[in-house]
């Protein structure tokens, strides 16, 4: 049934829904758009004090940028993480939140979670743009040549978020507490990913009675690689690990395939369940 015309109207509707998300988010607030920057800044402040000052965390050396600032090291991974979390959490609530739209109008339902991610992506790109300006000001050597790879990484994390978001958004209609579980899950996931702390701070000791240490857990977590690749191109200004990028792309498109499949299987009765 997906004709060219349907694709065109879907794209228009996607833009409109994303725009609605962006407009309504900061409407009637004093600082407006600035809020989307205040949050990561506050986060950065807290984590910098906690890890940079109290735990003396140092960004590991390497890369042509010679940057040493912990706050920037943090932001290079924290901003993508925040985008991922906000995108997934937003899209998970998008179907339940737009119940009236689903019950009274027809359009491809995927557009609701997708446009939520799209709106989060717009905020993310603005944040990353500002971060880039700051990085250029601080680094004594900075090659813009790896900037396109950052764009590729952003694309990969968007696809990953879309897959995860599609999967949980439709499940959330049937089990409304998934949203709350996910909130806790993301908190744990953040600390199981070297975002706010560098890997060199992680203990190498095996857990008692096993051959597993904390690094092993970080390794099986795809977001660990995501964080280090974002740092490789943004913070260190060098080439990403190509194998790691492929590995991340596989995760992302795998998640999208599963998410779409589950979504299509379960979307048939959305209007009744809402």
């Amino acid at each position: 049934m997906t004709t060219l015309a349907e694709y065109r109207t879907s794209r228009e509707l996607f833009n409109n829904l994303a725009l609605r998300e962006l407009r309504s988010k900061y409407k009637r607030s004093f600082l407006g758009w600035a809020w989307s920057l205040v949050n990561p800044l506050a986060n950065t402040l807290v984590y910098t004090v906690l890890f940079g000052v109290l735990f003396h965390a140092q960004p590991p050396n390497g890369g042509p940028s010679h940057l040493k600032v912990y706050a920037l090291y943090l932001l290079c991974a924290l901003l993508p993480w925040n985008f991922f979390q906000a995108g997934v959490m937003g899209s998970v609530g998008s179907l339940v939140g737009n119940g009236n739209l689903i019950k009274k109008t027809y359009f491809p339902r995927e557009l609701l979670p997708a446009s939520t991610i799209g709106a989060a992506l717009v905020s993310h790109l603005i944040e990353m743009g500002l971060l880039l300006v700051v990085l250029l000001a601080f680094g004594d050597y900075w090659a813009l040549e790896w900037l396109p790879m950052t764009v590729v990484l952003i694309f990969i994390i968007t696809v990953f978020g879309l897959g995860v978001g599609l999967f949980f958004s439709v499940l959330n209609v049937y089990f409304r507490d998934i949203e709350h579980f996910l909130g806790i899950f993301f908190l744990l996931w953040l600390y199981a990913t070297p975002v706010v702390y560098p890997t060199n701070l992680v203990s190498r000791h095996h857990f008692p009675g096993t051959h597993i240490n904390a690094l092993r857990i970080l390794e099986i977590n795809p977001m660990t690689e995501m964080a280090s690749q974002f740092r490789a191109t943004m913070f260190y200004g060098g080439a990403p690990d190509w194998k790691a990028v492929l590995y991340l792309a596989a995760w992302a498109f795998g998640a999208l395939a599963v998410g779409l499949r589950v979504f299509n299987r379960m979307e048939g009765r959305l209007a009744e369940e809402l």
Partner: protein
Amino acid sequence: MSDPAVVADHVSKKFRLFKEKNNSLKATIMRGRRVVAEDFWAVKDVSFEVPKGEAFGLIGENGSGKSTMLKCLTRIYRPESGRIGINGKVSALLELGAGFHPELSGRENVFLNGAILGLSQKELRQRFDAIVDFAGIGKFIDEPVKNYSSGMYVRLGFSVAINVDPEVLLVDEVLAVGDEAFQRKCNEKFADLKADGKTIILVSHAMSAVQNMCDRVAWFEHGELKEVGDAREVIEHYTGSVQVERDVDESGRPHWGSGEGQITRAELIGAEGEVVERLVTGAPGRIRLHYEMHEPVAQPVFSMYLSTINGQPVSGPNSRAYECVPDKLDGRGYVDLCMDEVRLLPGTYDLTPLITDITMMKVLDQRQNLLRFDVERGGLLREDWGVTTLSPRWEITPGS
């Protein structure tokens, strides 16, 4: 032209009636199951075809499946089995302004709602002025819609939906919104669309609207298609069946009341004293009730309640108020409500006649909606707004 615009081919839609529904993961795990449900077939094996350019009505009692059918046509519901085919661009009016976001302005919402209905930004920019104009929103268009009155909200929603310029329009009971003037505008718009050869499918309880607009009608009963055919014919059968059921439902017998006397039938009498099918606005007319008293009844009072077919009361004269109370009536006879000039405006009305005692507390017989009749446009008609005329005179005094 013989190409059908809408095809429903053996469509069935099942709902699950939940006895237990665990909407959370926690409850599902604790109870060991998500739902305990029974199947309920809201639409059973329904097939019909609507040719291009036809106005097609879906009628039936509440819960008969007509709205579910419409939602299947709009793809909001996915039917369990069967096939639905629609040729051309579809616009559905299920709830007006359904996609409006309260915080956003009217302008932003027009673009959003239009996109949901399948319009491109370019098309929307072209039609924007027409949309705002038709809705009569004016300068409020840049206000957030949460500040709109419910009338403005609905008008804007309708205006967007109708300006989508669909080839197939699916409408659910939304005609009954807004004030009288806006309703008339809507009806004109529907007539225009019909004249332009658009296909319209209408779900409604208002038989007058269905009869006025639709060429053919499908009558749903308990999820199944009972009859499809010419609008007038099917509506007659449908109203006939509802009539009988209603009388039986209320009392278990066709008459309600203590039964010493009964109203046997009602008819309309024209200007020349002949039995007629319909009354004419502005012309003389009578409503005649035939009664039969099974025993002598002292001081009976006759009442006639007139309502529109939507149930809106119009008038309810009784013979006591007009000091026309006989000491005693027995056997058969008839009572006339005489009008020198019928003041009902053109439309369809329901008559509920009653016989009571002089206190009007004891009902001898009441026949709910015994007669449904039309009032026709007559030569003397000077008004078309509302249901009745005050037969006024006008005086203008300039320069005071």
